[in-house]
């Protein structure tokens, strides 16, 4: 036993070191308290004749558990009760290993972080003022905290929950009444939040109750602002900050080591308690617990964790049912809350109009989420986290069990899994000799019958008897027994009906009805008109062949001999086929805010971290023939975030939507937005505030990036400590090296020229000028520089810098040799890029063939994708659209949209799908109404839970039906 203890000592270092030394120095038997104190109990107990659940699935009926000095000495059926033991009769009771609450944030807020209520587009998130800049010596950007610390105020890994912890009876007693004996006390503030502590739920000396002081490092993808000016102000910014923090910690450790070795003749490194505190997690020695806040961010958390080589687990948002595939892929342990939405009590029947299908799905799926995660073969721990009324815990666990979580799994989720998760499986989680004597004892039918009381718990070998529940009011003896019985029978009948209704899920998976419709490797379309957008122009094609996701033949030759039984064929008489349309400027599938507006340069943030594969925008744009979109950061700052080009493979994961090997890019912006002209009176202090300052700013950052490159090449030559990896400068350096495309939002001719010249001075060619409203005034200069122009077709006059915008711009620039595309910058326009292109015909008489190129091959060229997409030529991706007529005629409709040789949109299918969804919504409303009548429907009794939980809008669908563009909440 002792040898084993030593082993344990190395594994669970903090905690065992403590208990072991106590045993060594103060043998329990010799512990005599000074006079005046109540003497210590002997501490030996025998619980006899109970039903002992040794571990999930292993049950001993009529067994005995012997406790000595706070640990379990013996357990079994034929145990002799030790002579010194106090004997407890456990007949009729079920004895479980003490439950572990694996996530207990003790703080001002106990609400889930993100997938929550509609988060309005924050004006404050657009509002950073002050001469903000990270990493400027002598300037702490975040005045939010005093003393040494990270420059980002939400990075506080040095916070230790253990430091502030004092047992509070008001908190821990209700938890014990739910059967919990230990809990992971988690820090609550910030993004990188600090470490949690595993504590015994006992009102004792804090030193005594700490089982393990630093269990996890906590990271939450938190976007609620504390200080509206502070970076980060967006979800993508949050992820960028996490990434940078870990790189900083890696560098910090190298730099400090170097300094320890030779403290002379080198610059002294700064002290940073936050980076110091991150060391364990950085080296994979401390598990990192991510709270991603939404189903999609679960996937992102896992990617970030793997990228940073972290040992990680995940706090579920309760909505993994949206994408169980992504949860499965993480392979992580999940801590799962059981806060289920409550049916609202609506003032009027008509108000059901306001209830969305997604609201209803979230409500109907909720209780099934834990079971669903188990079905993905994931380890699940259950938590009371985010339950406002923790008393609902058992009822909701029961609901989860009724929805398919086995009782065995549910028990494991409270015992063995959290023990494993916290790395204390040798001390907690089962009733086995040598383990800590934490027990949860329930009468009646056991824990998973919410009617059965948790009678007592044992914590560290001490008994905590539950407060006797208030005796039920004695029934009036004189009451009409018959009536009572009838009422009882009625209630029972109602309950049965209610349960039956509750337990049958009507909501479908959001995955249903999405994704490729066809599955054929060889496709042939007969007798059709093809706008190749290549050298062949518009062709009458007798046979358009597509094979393995690529264009095989697109010419006038007849190859009928090729047809085999597995060729998917259809006739294209009277139809027109074009390449899939390409939108060079989109924000339509970005999760959370489009802008990280707090700093003037946010080159470190990546749209690729927040691709929203779930938004309804994707299916709507597919229905308009769009197949590729350049997802760009907004235009709130001169140097915005990194872009992400996607293909609209609806139903794919965020990673699966990314355009493979597309050139990386970045959003830049000039003009009114970056100088905060229309942000309100408060915003007058961030640099730049004028068009004079914008080029100054670029010159500064590009020079800094050059120096950064030099620092690295010096290091490569001379060795030593590598320079700090700076994700902002690294990104700008990639531009200088020609490895990253600039997509620059630009308006006025003067600012465009100034910008081109600064870039030229660094040897950089600008890939695209976005919007480029006055580009027509300097078309020659743009052509000479070689930048593409990605314009609006005809937007103008919404702000002063577009007063000179003209719809002829595209045609005029094209005539003068500029590579022109039309973009949407709008999730609405992205549905009809073909008619946008038609405006080039109307204004400036661009030919139809050339006009269509504005939304196909020209956009592809601008994005560096023309080898893959943009025209229908052999070898290129089989991304194409089938139109009912001429694509430039607004009276034509898209019949089919294909990507990689697979059909993703079919007009007839779309109609059917809508009908299915409509039926689902009606069925769910019927269920909800019936449940409300019966008095059930979610976590709460009786419906009528107007806590708003029902109306939560998930992050994934926050912007559905809302047009998305560059400056949300502002002018464009």
């Amino acid at each position: 036993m002792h040898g084993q203890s030593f082993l344990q000592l190395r594994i669970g270092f903090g905690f065992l070191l403590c208990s072991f030394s106590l045993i060594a120095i103060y043998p329990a038997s010799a512990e005599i308290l000074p006079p005046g104190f109540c003497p210590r109990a002997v501490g030996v107990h025998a619980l006899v004749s109970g039903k002992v659940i040794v571990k999930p699935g292993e049950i001993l009926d009529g067994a005995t558990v012997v406790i000595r000095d706070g640990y379990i000495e013996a357990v079994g059926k034929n145990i002799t009760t030790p002579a010194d033991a106090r004997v407890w009769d456990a007949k009729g009771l079920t004895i479980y290993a003490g439950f572990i609450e694996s996530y207990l944030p003790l703080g001002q807020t106990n609400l889930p972080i993100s997938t929550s209520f509609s988060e309005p587009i924050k004006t404050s998130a657009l509002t950073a003022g002050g001469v903000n800049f990270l990493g400027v010596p002598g300037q702490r950007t975040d005045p939010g905290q005093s003393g040494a610390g990270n420059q980002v105020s939400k990075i506080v890994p040095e916070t230790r929950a253990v430091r502030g912890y004092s047992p509070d009876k008001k908190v821990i007693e209700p938890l014990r009444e739910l059967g919990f004996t230990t809990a992971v006390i988690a820090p609550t503030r910030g993004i990188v939040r600090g470490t949690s502590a595993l504590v015994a739920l006992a009102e004792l000396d804090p030193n005594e109750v700490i089982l393990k002081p630093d269990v996890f490092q906590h990271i939450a993808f938190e976007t609620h602002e504390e200080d509206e000016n502070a970076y980060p102000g967006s979800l993508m910014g949050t992820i960028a900050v996490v990434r940078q923090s870990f790189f900083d910690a890696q560098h910090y450790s190298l730099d400090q080591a170097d300094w320890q070795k030779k403290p002379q003749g080198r610059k002294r490194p700064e002290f940073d308690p936050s980076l110091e505190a991150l060391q364990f997690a950085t080296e994979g020695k401390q598990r990192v617990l991510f709270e991603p806040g939404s189903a999609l961010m679960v996937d992102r958390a896992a990617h970030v964790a793997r990228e940073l080589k972290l040992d990680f687990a995940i706090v579920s948002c309760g909505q993994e049912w949206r994408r169980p595939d992504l949860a499965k892929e993480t392979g992580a342990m999940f801590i799962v809350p059981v806060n289920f939405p409550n049916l609202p009590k609506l003032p009027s029947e008509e108000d059901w109009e306001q209830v969305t299908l997604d609201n209803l799905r979230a409500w109907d799926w909720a209780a099934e989420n834990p079971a669903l995660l188990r079905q993905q073969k994931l380890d699940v721990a259950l938590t009371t986290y985010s339950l406002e009324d923790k008393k609902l815990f058992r009822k909701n666990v029961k609901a989860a069990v009724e929805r398919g979580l086995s009782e065995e799994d549910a028990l494991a989720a409270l015992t063995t899994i959290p023990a494993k998760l916290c790395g204390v499986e040798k001390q907690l989680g089962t009733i086995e000799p040598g383990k800590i004597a934490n027990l949860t004892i329930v009468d009646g039918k056991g824990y998973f019958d919410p009617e059965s009381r948790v009678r007592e718990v044992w914590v560290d070998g001490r008994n905590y008897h539950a407060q006797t529940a208030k005796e039920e009011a004695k029934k009036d003896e004189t009451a009409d027994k018959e009536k009572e019985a009838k009422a009882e029978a009625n209630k029972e009948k109602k309950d049965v009906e209610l349960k039956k209704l509750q337990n049958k899920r009507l909501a479908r998976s959001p995955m249903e009805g999405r994704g490729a419709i066809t599955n054929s490797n060889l496709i042939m379309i007969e007798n059709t008109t093809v706008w190749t957008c290549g050298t062949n122009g518009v062709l009458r094609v007798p046979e358009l062949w597509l094979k393995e996701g690529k264009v095989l033949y697109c010419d006038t030759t007849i190859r009928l001999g090729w047809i085999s039984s597995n060729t998917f064929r259809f006739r294209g008489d009277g139809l027109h086929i074009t390449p899939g349309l390409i939108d060079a400027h989109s924000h339509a599938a970005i999760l959370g805010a489009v802008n990280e507006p707090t700093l003037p340069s946010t080159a470190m943030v990546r749209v690729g971290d927040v691709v929203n594969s779930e938004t309804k925008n994707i299916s709507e744009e597919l229905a308009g023939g769009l197949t590729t979109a350049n997802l760009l950061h907004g235009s709130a700052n001169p140097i915005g975030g990194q872009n992400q080009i996607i293909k609209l493979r609806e139903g794919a994961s965020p990673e699966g939507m990314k355009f493979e090997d597309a050139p990386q890019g970045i959003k830049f912006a000039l003009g009114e937005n970056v100088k905060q002209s229309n942000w309100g009176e408060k915003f007058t202090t961030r640099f730049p505030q004028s068009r004079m300052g914008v080029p100054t700013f670029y010159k500064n950052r590009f020079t800094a990036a050059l120096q950064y490159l030099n620092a690295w090449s010096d290091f490569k030559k001379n060795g030593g400590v590598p320079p700090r990896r700076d994700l902002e400068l690294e990104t700008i350096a990639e531009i200088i090296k020609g490895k990253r495309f600039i997509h620059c939002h630009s308006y006025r001719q003067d600012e465009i020229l100034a910008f081109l010249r600064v870039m030229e001075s660094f040897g950089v060619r600008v890939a695209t000028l976005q919007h480029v409203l006055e580009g027509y005034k300097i078309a020659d200069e743009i052509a000479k520089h070689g930048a593409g122009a990605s314009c609006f077709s005809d937007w103008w006059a919404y702000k002063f810098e577009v007063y000179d915008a003209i719809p002829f711009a595209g045609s005029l620039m094209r005539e003068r040799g500029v590579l022109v595309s039309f973009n949407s910058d709008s999730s609405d326009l992205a549905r009809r890029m073909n008619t946008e292109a038609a405006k080039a015909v109307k204004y400036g008489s661009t030919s139809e063939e050339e006009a269509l190129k504005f939304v196909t091959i020209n956009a592809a060229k601008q994005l560096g994708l023309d080898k893959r997409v943009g025209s229908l030529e052999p070898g290129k991706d089989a991304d194409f659209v089938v139109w009912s007529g001429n694509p430039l005629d607004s009276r034509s409709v898209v019949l089919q949209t294909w990507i990689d040789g697979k059909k993703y949109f079919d007009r007839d299918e779309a109609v059917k799908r809508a009908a299915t969804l409509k039926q689902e919504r009606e069925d769910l409303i019927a269920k909800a109404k019936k449940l409300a009548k019966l008095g059930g429907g979610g976590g709460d009794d009786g419906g009528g839970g107007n806590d708003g939980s029902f109306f939560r809008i998930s992050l994934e669908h926050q912007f559905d039906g809302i047009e998305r563009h560059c400056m949300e909440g502002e002018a464009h």
Partner: protein
Amino acid sequence: MIYDLRFTIWARPFLAFAFAVSCTMCFAETLLLTGATVHTVSGATITNGQVLVRDGKIAAVGKSVSGGGAREISLKSQHLYPGLVALNTDLGLVEIDAVRSTVDVREVGEYTPDVFSWLAVNPDSELLPVARANGVSHFEPVPFGAVVSGQSGLLALDGWTTEQMVAKKSIALHVFWPSVNLDAMPKEKSRNPAKWKSLEDQDKERKEKLRQLDDFFAEARAYAKAREGEKSFQIVPAWEAMLPVVHGEIPVTIHADEVRQIRVAISWAVTNGVKMILADALDAWRVADLLAKYKIPVIFNHVFTQPLRGEDGYDAHFRAAGVLTKAGVKVAFSGGGASLVKNMPYAAAQSVAFGLSADEALKGITLYPAQIAGVADRLGSIESGKDGTLFATDGDILDIRSNVKRMWIGGKEVSLENRHTRLYEKYKNRPKSP
């Protein structure tokens, strides 16, 4: 050659100028427009038809009309349409959205029936000629606001002053229907917890709003009645402005999007005997039968609004006008935002792609809005007796690729030049940069 060149450069703008001056000072000349496909809208389309315009009015339409002494204008292979009528827009009231000093679209207060939009139109707004260049001859600037926001007029896109531009004052009183949406955000999540209200309280509040509106109209009727009986009457401008509404002389344009709002608004209008027009009308297609039953015309503003619900289908709003029309509702397309009123025909065109007939679509931008504005005796179709307000194009007006070639308002030709064409000409002719 030299002479020709000088003529081209100098005489053109001069002529355009002289034209504009002369036309407001004297009668328009008599014109015979020949050779075009005449889309009469109200009747059959006449290929290679003729339209005689005399004294600013259409004097005759047909395959061949006698135009004794008229100047013939050949519009061979072109199409002739009546001027487009753009209702429900802020054109004329705003120059640049982001520049506050140029924005006159909204007043303060919930009950301001005596706010009149046509008084605040800037005749020299650069946005007006842009709309006109695509065939829009008339527009309705709407006073935006809360509840009873004021009255709109119909203006021609021609004239030196607002008084010359006004085709009809006070075509409608505007009511922006109070929101019925419940805010289900729980208190602790609310941005302003002090202002948070329970669903029950919100329900009370929205009912109270409706009661207030009822009350306002009842008071207006009471005022009208009292005014008739009393000789020495204390005039109240706001109540005075309500008189034509009370007397049923002008309709009430109710701006409402959400289906619950629309239902309540209809029942309110029916109860109060108000002549209702539904504007904006996002969810109108969901209550098409109800609208048809009460013969309430719709000014639809949401062809290009993304659907709120996936189950409505990706094309819900593309189809909406067709659904409404099929049910028997008269649908006009909204002029929309000031800078892009020119695109009004393409909202109609999109609806054609999704089920609306091309005829109805064309009516939705000509005759129906003219009827809704109460000016169908003068505008909206090419008929004898109506204003000589028409334009010629090189293709179907519903097709983006078509261009307006010439245009007449009240029988006189108007310029199609605008800020866009001027800048285009200027920079097209910029010498090649070395």
